[in-house]
């Protein structure tokens, strides 16, 4: 037996490890706390939009269903640019003024709009459907060239009766899935900038 072996055998067997088998009261508290942290963090991440962001209010509660389905207006009446540019655009008050310079019905919201138009107020629509600035996306490429329908990406917005209140976006996976399917480039530089 050399000196090192002697030292080793001087260490008591089984040492403190047996404590792991019996977490005891403190162990239970710690495990409980960890579980609580994990669950609340997961909840915060999945629900962050609902918890931390206030719903966005538009200047006028616009009703897509009423205009698109009941009054048969094409999307391009108000979103003028999707065949010409990368963006679609949101309508100026002149577009609304075409019909709403005088009252059409008796809703309060419309009365407010008629007054805003008469006062020459701007309609500052907040764009809620958007990608982060490091992504390049083009409407004319997808609508004019690839002939995709608006609802492929925007869902059923045409039959909604009130504006969306939260930011919506396509996830990268949504873009990539379709690009794979249609044999379009998935190079990073195709979309990122």
């Amino acid at each position, binding site marked *: 037996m050399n000196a090192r072996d002697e030292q080793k055998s001087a260490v008591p067997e089984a040492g403190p490890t047996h404590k792991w088998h019996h977490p005891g009261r403190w162990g239970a508290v710690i495990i409980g706390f960890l579980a609580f942290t994990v669950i609340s963090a997961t909840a915060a991440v999945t629900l962050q939009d609902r918890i931390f962001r206030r719903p966005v209010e538009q200047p006028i509660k616009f009703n897509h269903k009423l205009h698109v389905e009941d009054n048969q207006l094409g999307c391009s009446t108000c979103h003028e640019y999707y065949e010409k540019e990368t963006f679609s655009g949101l309508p100026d008050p002149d577009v609304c003024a075409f019909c709403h310079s005088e009252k059409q019905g008796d809703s309060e919201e419309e009365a407010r709009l008629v007054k805003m138009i008469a006062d020459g107020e701007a309609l500052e629509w907040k764009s809620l459907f958007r990608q*982060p600035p490091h992504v*390049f996306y*083009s409407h004319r*490429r997808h609508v004019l060239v690839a002939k995709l329908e608006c609802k492929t990406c925007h869902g059923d917005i045409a039959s909604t009766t009130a504006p969306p209140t939260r930011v919506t976006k396509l996830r990268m996976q949504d873009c990539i899935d379709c690009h794979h399917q249609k044999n379009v480039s998935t*190079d*990073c*530089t*195709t979309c990122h*900038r």
Partner: protein
Amino acid sequence: MARWSMVIDLDRCTGCQACVVACQVENNVPPAGADQAAAGRTISWMRLAPFQNGEHGTRPDLKLVPIPCMHCDHPPCIKVCPVKATQIGEEGLVAQVYPRCIGCRYCTTACPYTVRQFNWRRPEWPQPMERGLSPDVSVRPRGVVEKCSFCHHRLQRAKDKVSAENRPLREGDYVPACVESCPAEAMVFGDLDDPRSNVTRLSQSPRAFRLLEELGTEPKVIYLSKGEWGGEV
């Protein structure tokens, strides 16, 4: 499939730095400020490196050589990236995907041309300049590496435009800002896989050479010069 390439004629280049400025503006590269510059932390996607032209003992002839990212066919940077934030695309462009980058800076070390730079700070512009930023290029946050992209946002725009016009991309549809700005017309840009393009023709000139060719990186920036070359000063 295109293979994008840049030719820089050093016999024409006057070292005026128009390309450096054009690049800075085009790509939202922030000014460093005096303290950052003193710490050697300026960012410039296109820099001029002083080289000695001619044999030793003769009259010294300095040449300022514009150095963008070489968009190598075998880029050493992509091999060391642990998160695949830098990748080479089908058309030979070496991409830097900022949201993916974790700022480890292996790539800045691996690049033999030292064209990769790190954002030590959140970028800031003097007041009115902030409104002049280009929406086609995203502003890089603190903690990521950036480099010359061959203005690939211009390629995105060009492809979008020609697809709407229902025609193929032609020479001149996609040109980076530096090439466009060069008053001496010392820079040419185009597709190296197109046998009739200007870059292909120039790349076959006896004056053509590439930087650090012996490393096997296969850079797609090609220089032209009739002089003999000494080292970087």
